[in-house]
């Protein structure tokens, strides 16, 4: 009898547990993920591919978007090519509907140089049937990025910059213009082989070298974006580009390493070719020997107190020659740079 009572006791407690759980937590019984019919049903094009407008003036802040509709979800790629240069913009997506949300072009570039005015061919490729549809867009005005340009290297070396290069082999810490660049025609070539030190060379951009003797950045680190165009040669993977943001927190006109913040952006895995690297100022980290470390100053990101921006080019001394190209160092607000 005692055993039966114990079983009743356990069953009672379990019942209470089960009721509490099932009533206390409502389960969502909707199916998970996209509908299989939308993914694996018969594919047909319901609306042909077209542009929202024939002419677009990016200088007037206009944009153009592309539309198409399919019976099922599929991967698609829109490729926009300039008829006058190799400028290319690629927009990729996976959906059954292409519209303003996922098919908009704001004049920016994926493969440099930047777009010029003139006719562009636009191609839509859909994975489901491997079909291609075409249209055209005429660019009548070019987008002009707004922001605070630190360096575009178009007017040579600013005498206020501090450039140091080691006396290694094949050193090229200089401005060059022998290839297509994202902006203008000049870029800064950082290359060389230094077999006794990680540092190959550096370039400091102090606030005093700016036209108004300061960077003129907002005090809100979430509004400020740092952007730079960088190039990595196909065959060289050993280079490290390190940007340092040194703040003058006490306003004495100097940056003190012992008690003022220095934030960093370390780039070790650049893609081959030109690319735009952008980061929100508030997302810069404090590094010490490449590892996250507590900032030395007020531990606040203060873009308005930026004293010096430094670019260091580094490589493992045992790894041989290394090179990276740099162009268009610019701070933007409200979003990353789009060229």
């Amino acid at each position, binding site marked *: 009898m005692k055993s039966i009572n114990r079983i009743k006791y356990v069953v009672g407690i379990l019942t209470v*547990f089960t009721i509490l759980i099932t009533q206390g937590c409502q389960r969502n019984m909707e199916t998970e*993920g996209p509908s299989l019919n939308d993914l694996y049903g018969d594919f047909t094009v319901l609306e042909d591919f077209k542009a929202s407008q024939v002419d677009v003036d990016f200088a007037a802040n206009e944009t153009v978007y592309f539309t198409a509709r399919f019976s099922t979800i599929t991967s698609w790629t829109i490729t926009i090519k300039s008829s006058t240069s190799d400028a290319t913009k690629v927009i990729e997506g996976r959906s059954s509907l292409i519209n303003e949300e996922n098919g908009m072009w704001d004049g920016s570039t994926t493969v440099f140089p930047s777009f010029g005015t003139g006719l562009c061919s636009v191609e839509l490729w859909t994975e489901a049937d491997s079909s291609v549809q075409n249209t055209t867009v005429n660019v009548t005005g070019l987008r002009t990025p707004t922001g605070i340009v630190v360096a575009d290297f178009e007017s040579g070396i600013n005498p206020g910059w501090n450039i140091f290069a080691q006396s290694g082999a094949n050193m090229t810490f200089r401005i060059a213009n022998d290839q297509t660049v994202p902006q203008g025609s000049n870029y800064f070539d950082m290359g060389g082989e230094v077999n006794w030190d990680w540092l190959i060379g550096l370039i400091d951009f102090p606030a005093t070298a700016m036209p108004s003797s300061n960077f003129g950045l907002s005090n809100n680190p979430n509004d400020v974006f740092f952007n730079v165009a960088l190039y990595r040669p196909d065959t060289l993977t050993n280079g490290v580009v390190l940007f340092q943001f040194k703040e003058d927190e006490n306003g004495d006109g100097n940056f003190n390493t012992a008690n003022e913040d220095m934030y960093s952006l370390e780039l070790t895995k650049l893609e081959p070719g030109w690319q735009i690297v952008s980061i929100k100022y508030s997302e810069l980290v404090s590094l010490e020997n490449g590892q996250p470390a507590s900032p030395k100053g007020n531990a606040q990101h203060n873009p308005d107190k930026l004293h010096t921006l430094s670019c260091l080019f580094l490589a493992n001394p045992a790894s041989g020659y290394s090179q990276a190209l740099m162009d268009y160092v610019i701070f933007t607000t409200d979003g990353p740079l789009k060229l």
Partner: protein
Amino acid sequence: MIQMKYITVLLLSICSTMAVGQNKKVWASGAARSVFQQNSIQTDGDTITPTNLNSGNTLVDVAINARPNENTFVHGMVRVRNDFGGFWGSGVTFDMRQLYLKGLVNDAVRYQLGDINYKLSPYTFYNNQEELSSHQSEALEIYRDMVHCDMFYTSDNTWRQQGAAVDFTLEFSNLVKELQVNTFLFRNRPTDFGQTSERIFFGGNATLLQSEKLSFGMNYVDMMDVLGTSRSNKAFHNPVITGTVDAYQKLKAYQFKFKSESGISEMYTLNDPNATGLRDYFYDLDLEITRGKKLPSLGVNYINVGPQFRSIGAQSRRIDFGAQNQMFNRYGNDQVVRPITQMDMMQDASLYQSTLSMDLQRYAPQYDNVQPYGKATPNRKGFSLSAAHTMKNELIQVNGTYRLLSEVVGQGTDVLRDFNVLDLRALIRLDTLISSYKHPLELSIGLTNQNTQRDVKLDTADIDLKSTMIDVGLKIGISENFAIIGSYRMMNASGVELLNTRNDYSQIVDFERFETDMKQSIMLLALRYSFDTKNHLNVVWQKLKYEDASNQDTPSFDLKQFGIVYSMYF
């Protein structure tokens, strides 16, 4: 180099301290291991991949144990490893392998600080076994045990964490026997002082023992970001709370063991407008019936784990199938990434993870498609039946489990996937039949068969995946110290499955078609000389054959390996 000098000096000072410490308050322990392997790969028509690869290393784990007083124990272990071919110190690495301090406060509260092995329940904090390891013959454990040792995996399914743990017990004079309380706080991720906040994992368990026959428990864990440790105001949370009931009852000659666990989980991110919270529940009811040793024990289990049930501590996987093999990483004339085989799973520590993962990680359906995240695998419900029996003379030990599960909700359709798994194991001790034979003579057999099916009347979305594993092992003791051990394991999988693609918030956003027609087998033969129970020398030869007829990108290949493995614990 300077670091090596410091560590050498440290080791020497520790040794000299030990030599002085004749009062047994300080002593050394550790392990040593040496491995040498000759590997070769053969792929039809491959003229690019080097076919032979030799590797080896020797490592020593030196631990210093100290008991400065009756209630305090300190343990520190350094690993010194030397890869063969690294002369004059160039291939030598020194690592602090583990460091902890534990003790007893006021003869009542136990604590541990530093590196801690910890677990709670299979739904809250549990290190599930990796694929194919539920049963495998002794021969296949030679390399697997080394990986487990390197990754701090233990047979009791604990995760190695760093932090603090405290436990104590309160005893009562009537109504309730005792209350056991265990708590922990681990640091899962440090801050980068930028946008990545410090992440901690904390929780505990309280178990109320009413008597030896009845107990109730509560588990609580939470993985959370600590606001204020970075500039980010987003804070991830994954609290899980569960209740348990354990009861034992004897009715006439039958013994009933009843266990249940049920609970709720949430996963959300504060101050992230894009995050959609997940919330769900599970319950697990388990009954085991035994009647002496003459009849087999029987078990029945029912689980219901919701699709949105998330428990990082219990759903983190050991093997990362997104990783790549270290040995013959690429092969064939196209130098494609070599698929992960059962040989790699046994011996490549780089495929394994030592930390908890925030996501439901990628898994390999050909190896386990039914419960790849252990019992806490989301979106599963159903029964399992089990039976186990050992013959009185221990000639045969056999156990088996049959699981019949389905999804709780459909994925992309209302039609549910159905799963069934048959798992059989047997160990036959032939030496019990031959009284004159004084050494082990054992044959082990294992079989696992999995089926997954879903018919949605849409050819490209129907699911039918089958996999079978057969493992036969042999152990022949030649003398007291010398044995021959061998194994043959075959693993076949064929069919189609749709794998989930999830976004950063663990929601399914797409499906990825997975198709396989895989056949692989591994044959292993080893000679083992045991100096004592903790000191073995193994000479191992093994051969693996792999082919996947449905995937033309990955050509068939054979792997051969000859290895010498010496291991010792002291």
